């Protein structure tokens, strides 16, 4: 394990920012710390970097306990949320700063900075000041500046938060690609699940200063381990009293349920496949989502969402449809279970 946190605790006044945080990161992985704001993810990142000191617990980087090591000696590169580019220095000087502090010789610095500027694709902008750059360019400079002194670990705090939605997508894949090229172990913080899913090899979900779940995006999506993870990843809609739906029974100890859009099948009434289990609903809204249609359906006051591929039969708002919920996540305070619609199982058919 390259980075290892053992039972970290950190408190700011009444706010418990980290509560027994333990996890480890393999060398070369790109890991996303995902959680809502105030969940402690940035604090964890700042503790790894040395910007913040934990109240208790241990931090290991490459097998060495770094708690008492000054931040500058940890071999960590840090990209700040608002980049924190040095406003009064040029792009070149920004990237060179870490190397000049290390008193590297001029020729070496020039070569290294030139190499990094090529890596981030900003050739020709060396003499610009930060305020003459676009958000995406600033982000790239901040990235290069963090990489310049050759850190072993790269930490990025909300790397895309300050960027326009349009550029964000492009920058995400660029960052993923570039980090892969450099081969550096990286941890980034985000509150955007889409971003985490798209960029990270592994995701660590934080909530209220605690780690909820660690795993690959697919793994967390398929098998959420905690109620929070089930609700936070993917679109989820809470179903009150799920045992009143056809095909579900009350599992003792599980009071709540959520459903994902892909668990909901909407079909024309004449094409209904499971008449017994299906319910009738009314389409209350149709939204084009680029590669699919999002349907909002009202089933006796229960508002559900479903995705419909573009080449399937078109629906109209107000149309009465057949709705089938063939799976649910049920949960209590600590546990999540995936349950199938029992009537489909007994039928012996399973689709998709």
């Amino acid at each position, binding site marked *: 394990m390259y980075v290892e946190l053992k039972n970290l605790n950190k408190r700011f006044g009444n706010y418990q920012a980290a509560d027994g945080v333990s996890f480890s990161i393999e060398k070369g992985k790109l890991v996303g710390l995902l959680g809502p704001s105030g969940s402690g993810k940035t604090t964890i990142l700042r503790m790894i970097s040395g910007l913040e000191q934990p*109240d208790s617990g241990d931090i290991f980087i490459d097998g060495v306990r770094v708690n008492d090591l*000054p931040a500058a000696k940890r071999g960590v590169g840090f990209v700040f949320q608002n980049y924190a580019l040095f406003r009064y220095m040029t792009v070149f000087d920004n990237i060179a700063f870490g190397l000049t502090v290390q008193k590297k010789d001029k020729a070496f610095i020039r070569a290294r900075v030139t190499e990094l500027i090529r890596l981030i694709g900003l050739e020709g902008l060396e003499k610009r000041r930060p305020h003459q750059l676009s958000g995406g360019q600033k982000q790239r400079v901040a990235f290069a500046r963090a990489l310049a002194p050759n850190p072993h670990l790269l930490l990025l705090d909300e790397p895309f938060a300050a960027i326009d939605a349009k550029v964000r997508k492009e920058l995400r894949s660029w960052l993923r690609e570039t980090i892969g090229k450099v081969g550096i172990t990286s941890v980034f913080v985000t509150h955007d699940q889409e971003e985490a899913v798209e960029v990270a090899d592994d995701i660590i979900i934080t909530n209220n200063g605690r780690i909820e779940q660690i795993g690959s995006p697919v793994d967390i999506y398929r098998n959420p381990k905690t109620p929070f993870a089930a609700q936070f990843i993917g679109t989820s809609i809470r179903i009150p009293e799920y045992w009143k739906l056809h095909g579900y029974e009350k599992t003792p100890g599980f009071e709540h349920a959520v459903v994902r859009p892909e668990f909901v099948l909407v079909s024309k009434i004449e094409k209904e496949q499971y008449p017994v289990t299906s319910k009738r609903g009314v389409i209350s809204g149709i939204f084009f989502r680029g590669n699919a249609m999002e349907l909002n359906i009202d089933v006796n006051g229960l508002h559900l969402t479903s995705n419909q591929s573009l080449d399937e039969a078109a629906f109209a708002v107000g149309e009465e449809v057949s709705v089938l919920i063939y799976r649910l996540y049920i949960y209590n305070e600590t546990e999540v279970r995936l349950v199938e619609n029992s009537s489909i199982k007994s039928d012996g058919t399973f689709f998709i």
Partner: protein
Amino acid sequence: MPKRAMGTNTGRSIRRRRNQVIPGFGLSMGVTIFMLSLIVLIPLASVFVVLSGATPQEIWKAITDPQTVSTYKVSFACAGIASVVNVVFGILLAWIITRYKFPLRRVLDGLIELPFALPTAVAGISLTTLYSDKGWIGGFFAKFGVMISYTTIGITIAMIFIGIPFVVRSIQPVLEKLDPQYDEAASVLGASKARIFFKIIFPEITPAALTGFGLAFARAIGEYGSVVFIAGNIPWKTQITPLIIKSKLEQFNYTAATSIALVMIIFAFCVLFGINTLQARINRIAQG
């Protein structure tokens, strides 16, 4: 460096909560507290050291001495009137500077700072001469039997001079932030100019105007240089409180001087506290 000295409980909590990587906390805090103590706190504490050697009766007698009380009246009355005048003209000046375009507007804006930049003694002798019965303005009023220099009118004028920048500079930023669209919207709705001002603008600038009033008032009470010449220092008539402190000091009556000083310090703190409370409210409005 002062890390070792701060091994107490509070010291530890300071260390834990401070920023972890930015260097220089110990040094800068050490220098700050050292210099602050040496130049401000310890000298100021001498007021209490000296007064601890006096009986409460002595102190009470000094601060309620009839001649001293007459100086409070002069100082407060003149400062009060001057600050009211300043609020009126302060709003007017801040308004024309932020809202209208006219020749020399920037010069006018810059001139507001004059009382900050001009040495108070120079302002003092200049105002005294200007408003004396032989001066340009004083001479005019003297024809009607109105004396300005060496009367409370003169004191008030000097206090207006010294206080005007405080009011203008308190109100100006609020007016600048106030979106002109705001009153445009009101005028589209058919409100008259006067109505817009009194119903919409005035409530917005009231806290700032009060802050300016407080600052100008506190300054006027404490002011010495620009007021002392024009006051003429006639006991019972035009003697201001800072002046009586100085004369007690020249008579080596340290207890009396220090007692009266304490009254002024307490008063200044009350004004400052009031202003800070107001300022907190202004900031809340400005932010949300």
